[in-house]
Every structure is written in structure tokens, then in C-alpha cells.
């Protein structure tokens, strides 16, 4: 009796496994195996063309006294600190605006979402043109405006200056907020109308409704976007790489991912690159755990 009862269940499990197999195989071959190998390589000296040689924690020790490591870490941290709150703030604001009763909402949503569809290389080229220190559209505009008021003004070299390049790159990040805005917008539309009505009956104004209804009800979406933003800011590579030519003046925009790439493919130190990747993984994990831990205080589920 037992055998006959188990057979359909087994068949069901096998069918399920067969459907999930493409993902499982893909995940194992392209993610799990490389991840395990990267952990292994991080404890080796591995110039790619020779076999990996076990060196224990030497890669990690070497990184602790490597100025490039600290510089790239510092730059990425500063960028994340500027970019994540800025992008979140802009996204929430745009989502709130798009959620207002406006004419042709579809058009506005498309306008906001469209830039995120532009390939990153194309948008980087666009920014290069806009922010060129000499003949960029922004600087030409600034010079002309200053000229109208009779002022002599030399606008900065936005991408060449080592003091402002990180804020500029963080600002550029708003170009791709379309995805985040759409998620926030979905979150906003999910907030029950009764809650606003109840707040209104209690005498809450627009600001209080935003503060005590919208933002708390949006907090699960914020939580999700915050984690994605942290991961994204620690993995940033393409746009800054193109805009700064691989790290900018004095390596002022040399990001962590750029160092991983250089270590692996320019200096052929795959072991050190793997160690860098492990540290990055650890940092992102710790930050995510912190956000998850803190979410008990600020994320409100219905």
C-alpha cells in the first residue's frame, strides 16, 4: 500500500525537478561552481596561465597594505553613501508625482522609465558630451548665463576634477531610476484608499498623510529598493569606467569593481581578484544583514 502511495508523489517530484532542471543546471554551472572556485582561488596565487598555488590568507594580508585596495574601497563607499539615498529620494519623489492625478499619466511614466532602457554605454557617451569640461553643453550654458550677468566664471571640469567627480557620478545615477520608480509607483498604488480617508477624517494634512501613511506603507518597497541599491552601488562599473577612462584623475573615481577587473585581467592575478571579490561579497552581505536587522524598526507590513 505504501509503495503505491509514494509512486505518484515521486513522479510528481521528478516532473517538478525536470521543469526546474534548466535553472538548476544553469545556476550550478554558471553561478554556484564559479562561486565555489572563486572562494578557492582567493586562497591561491593564480596567474591564470599557471596552476593555482595555495598561499592561505596571503592575498587578504597583501590587500590590507595595498593603497589601491583602500582607495577603491573608500571611493565605492563614498559613492554608495551619496548614490543610494539620492537615488532613493529622487525615485520616491518621482513616484509620488506620477501617482498624482495628472493628465496622460502613461506618457509621463514612459518619459521617466525610458532613460533606464538606454544602454549604459550610450548614456555614458551622452554624459561625456554634456559634462565635457571645455565645450560640454552644461559648461557652455553656465558660461553664457554668467555672461548675461557680466560675471567671469570658469565652470569646473566635472569629470576631470578629483574633488567633484564622485558626487557627479552619484548624480548621474538618477538617469537610471526608472526601474526603481516603477516599483515605488506599484507600492504607492497598493496603499488602500481607506487609510488616506481615515487620516483625512482625523484631520491629517498632506504632509502628515505623507509622513504617517504613505511612507510607512511604502517602507517594504523602500526596504527592497534599499537592498538592491546597496548591491548596485557596490557593483557599479560601466558608466564610471567610460566616463573617467578607468578611474579618473589620481584614481579619484577608481571603484572596487575596476580594481577586481584590473587585478584579474591586467595584472593576471586571479587569486587576488578572487580575494577582492570575496571581500566585496562579505561587505555587501554585512550591509544587507544590517539593513534586514534594522528593518524591524522602520519597515511596516500590513
Amino acid at each position, binding site marked *: 500500500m505504501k509503495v503505491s502511495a509514494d509512486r505518484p508523489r515521486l513522479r510528481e517530484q521528478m516532473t517538478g525537478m525536470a521543469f526546474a532542471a534548466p535553472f538548476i543546471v544553469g545556476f550550478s554551472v554558471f553561478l554556484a561552481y564559479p562561486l565555489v572556485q572563486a572562494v578557492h582561488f582567493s586562497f591561491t596565487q593564480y596567474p591564470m596561465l599557471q596552476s593555482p598555488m595555495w598561499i592561505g590568507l596571503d592575498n587578504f594580508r597583501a590587500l590590507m597594505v595595498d*593603497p589601491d585596495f583602500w582607495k577603491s574601497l573608500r571611493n565605492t563607499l563614498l559613492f554608495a553613501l551619496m548614490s543610494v539615498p539620492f537615488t532613493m529620494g529622487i525615485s520616491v519623489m518621482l513616484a509620488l508625482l506620477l501617482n498624482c492625478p495628472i493628465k496622460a499619466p502613461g506618457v509621463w511614466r514612459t518619459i521617466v522609465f525610458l532613460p533606464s532602457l538606454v544602454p549604459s554605454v550610450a548614456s555614458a557617451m551622452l554624459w561625456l558630451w554634456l559634462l565635457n*569640461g571645455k565645450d560640454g553643453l552644461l559648461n557652455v550654458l553656465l558660461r553664457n548665463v554668467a555672461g548675461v550677468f557680466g560675471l*567671469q566664471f570658469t565652470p569646473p571640469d566635472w569629470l576631470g576634477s578629483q574633488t567633484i567627480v564622485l558626487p557627479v557620478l552619484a548624480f548621474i545615477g538618477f538617469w537610471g531610476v526608472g526601474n526603481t520608480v516603477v516599483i515605488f509607483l506599484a507600492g504607492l498604488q497598493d496603499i488602500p484608499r481607506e487609510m488616506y480617508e481615515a487620516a483625512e477624517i482625523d484631520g491629517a494634512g498632506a504632509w502628515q498623510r505623507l509622513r504617517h501613511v504613505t511612507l510607512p506603507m511604502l517602507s517594504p518597497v523602500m526596504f527592497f529598493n534599499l537592498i538592491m541599491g546597496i548591491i548596485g552601488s557596490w557593483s557599479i562599473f560601466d558608466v564610471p569606467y567610460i566616463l573617467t577612462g578607468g578611474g579618473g584623475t*589620481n584614481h579619484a573615481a577608481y571603484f572596487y569593481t575596476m580594481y577586481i577587473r584590473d587585478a584579474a*585581467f591586467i595584472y593576471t592575478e586571479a587569486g587576488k581578484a578572487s580575494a577582492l571579490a570575496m571581500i566585496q561579497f562579505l561587505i555587501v552581505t554585512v550591509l544587507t544583514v544590517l539593513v534586514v536587522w534594522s528593518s524591524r524598526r522602520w519597515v511596516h507590513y500590513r
Partner: protein
Amino acid sequence: MRILFSRVIAGVMILAALYVLLFGSKPGSYEYPDATAVPKDFTVVTYWEKWTREEGAGMQRVVDLFNTTEGRDKKIFVQLVSVSQVDQKTLVATAGGDPPDIAGLWGQQLGAFITYGALRPLTELQADGTITAETYKPFLWKCVAPHGTVYAASSTPATVAIFWNKDLFREAGLDPERGPQSIKELDEMADRLTVVDGKGQIIRAGYLPNFPGWWDYSWGEFFGNKIWNEETDDFRIDTPENVRAYSWYQKYAIKYGPGTVQTFGAGFGQVATPQNPFMNGTVAMCLQGPWFVSYVENYTPRFAKLNFSYIQRQLSRREITQAQADAKIIEARELFAEHYGAAMPPNSIGKPGDALHGDLDIWAIPRGAKHVKEALEVIRFFTRQENMELLCTWHSKPSPLMKVSEKFIRNHPNPYIDVFEEMLRSPNITGLPQSPNWIRAQDQIRLAANALWRSPERNAVEPTLRQAQENFDRHLAEYRKYAGMRKQVESASSGSEGRR
């Protein structure tokens, strides 16, 4: 009506796509336009090459020549694949055991590739006299055979010259036929050619040592620095010669103000575009390689319909005869020489020619290549004098071979090819240390130069170079430590195998 219109548009687009797929032009002009059309008894040799545009067309021309002549007879087909970041991709492909049969690499990485055993020695080409100390120019021989064994063939070599705009020289009252003979004279000429407006902004720069920035690591050579000790494989960055070189380099940023030169430099376009400041007359002198003649001819309006690749296209379409093409090339040469000059670069240790900088691109067979015999045949064909000269003509460069035909010099699109040939033969040429640590050293110097140029107020020359040296020394110590450990591991494993 709208739906019908949409459907018609969609139908037309699909038909157009189908037409292009079925009847569109195919690459190459010979019987087997791509590897899929090659008869089954042919061996397909995969050749990865970094070059695109005019240089890529030159490479394809030589490949086509092989495929339609010797390749057809020997049943070998070369498939040229244009690959960006070819060094990195070849490295990964070789490590993964699936490299191309021939890799067209930059010479800068050769030392690292040889050290890590990524390349198969070309001993057959050395033995049959194709690549020897006698057939190659000495500098290139030293590069491709650092310890006497040939690891690569030079595809197109280069030396660096000083180019100047003769029209701007005339305007500034300078002799247009005479370039700077020393660093001091370069500075004086630069001052006379520079134009600054009333607000202190640079309108035209006589010379800027960081333009185009490709050889920022090599300035020490022109001040007598010997960066690489071949015996010890050590690099010296913080030498007195380098301090002098980079003090001179930084002086330009200080003279005009770092903000001013940066704003001026931000307006520079890519080198191979009409926005190149030398081409549009905003920089009067610059360091460049022989290819620059081709760039100027391709992107400066006065050379419209006279540039080499356009002439070649006309020739291949049979719009002009060979004699007409030769006449046009001579016309272009004369036009270039009328407006631009090129000569050996000045230095601070003596007369021009006492310190020269060289570079090269290479063909190599990566370890694990599947068609070694055929790849050797292909490289042997490429390296033949007439084919080498054809390729170097397309690239506007000198030939790597000692023997150069009179026709090569006479019909070369570069009017200063004799200068580049002479430089390449000189014993004073340096530039490509065949060491796995060269890229690290180069990067440290580049970074230091960048800091000195961008923020001279914060970075003094000596401490910046000292810091660069310390950074490099740390990497070198690490490299040596692991190289030693590897040797121990290898000798231990070979010892245990011996006992077994």
C-alpha cells in the same frame, strides 16, 4: 486603415531583412567568403586581431592575399576575427584551453605572456631563417626573442616622432622645415606658438607633454633614465633622471595653471577623429607614431579623397588604375609634407636620435592552439618581405625587416617613412621591457604623471615618484616571493616524481 498600414510597413521590413540576409554583400572578394563556405578538406586557422578601421582593413587585405594564393594551394583558410581587448581575451581563452591559432597582440604584454608560458615558441620560423637576428631590426629582435628564443613575429612596429604644424610655425615666425632639436628649444618654440586670451584661457597650445598621453611613462627615457635593469628585472622610477623628466613635464601644468590646462585638455577629442587638437590646429606640436600620417589624412578635410584607404577603395572598385593610385598617394604625401613636419623627438641628453622610443604589435601562437603547423605557415607568409611591406604600407608604418625595398619607401603614404625607418634601426631605441612586471611599473608611472599634471599644488615630483617606486617595489617583492615558491613546488614535485 492604420492596421493595414502597420502590416504593410512590417512586411516591407521583413522582406528587406530577408533580402539583406540572402543577397547582401559578403566579406572578402574571393571564393570562400567566410569559414562556413570553406571546403571540408581545408583547415581553418582562427586569427584574433585587435585592429579595426583602416588598420583592420590592412590586416584583412593581407589575410585575403593569403587565402587567395598560398592558402588555396595549401588548403588553409585564415579567419580573421576582430577582437577588442585582445590581450585579456587571449589570456582567458588560453587559460581555458581554447585559444585562437594566431593572436594579434600588443607588444606591451609580451613579457608577461612569455613568462607565464602562454605562447608557443616559434622555433620553426627561427630555424628556417624567417625570424632571426639578421632578418629583424635589432630592437624588434630583442623584443620578440628576449632570451634568444623567438616567441612572436612583429606585425607592425613603430617609433615615436615629434610632429609639427608647418602653417602655425610660419605664423609664429619659426622655420617650418626644422623641428625642435632639444627639450630647451621645444619649450621655446612652444612658448612662441602658444596663444592665451585676455581671460588667461589657452586658445592654442604650442606643446603639451601630456598630449596625447600615450607615452607618459616614457619621459624618463628622453632624460637619460634607464628604467629597466634586464639582469635583475628591476624597474627604477625615482631616479634623478626621472625627477628631471617629470619636473619638466609638470612645469607645463604650473606655467599655464592646472585648471587652465585641464579645461583646455577637456576639449580634446579622440586621437583618430577630426576633433584631434593637432588636426584642428589647437595644438601645434605633438609626439606621435608613424600611423599619425594616416589619421591626419583620414580626418583632415584637406585630404578628402586623397587618403590612402579611400584611394585603395577606388582601386579595388577599379575606378582608378594603379598608376593613378600611385600618383594620388604621391600627391597626398606632398600635401602632408607641405603642411606638417615630423622628425626624431628632442631629448635632454644630446641631439635628436640619442634617445628614442619604440613599440610593436605582434603575431603569436598561444599555448594550446589547435592548428600550429598551419598557423606557422600563415605567419611565415605574413612575414615575407613583400607582404610585410604591404601591411606596413596600410598601417603607415616602417617595416620590421632589415631588408626594405626601394619601392616601399618610394610609394609609402607616409612622407617621413625614412625618418621612422632610421629610428627603428637605431641602437638608441628603447621602450618594451620584456618583463612580466612592466605593466605594473608602467601603471605606477602613469598614475604619478597624472597626479603631477592634475594637481601640482598637492604633488611634488620627488615624493610622488618615490611613492610610485614604493608601490611598485611592493608588487615586485610579492611577485618574486611567489615565483620562488613556485620554483620550490615544481622542484619538489619533480623530485618526488624522480624518486617514484
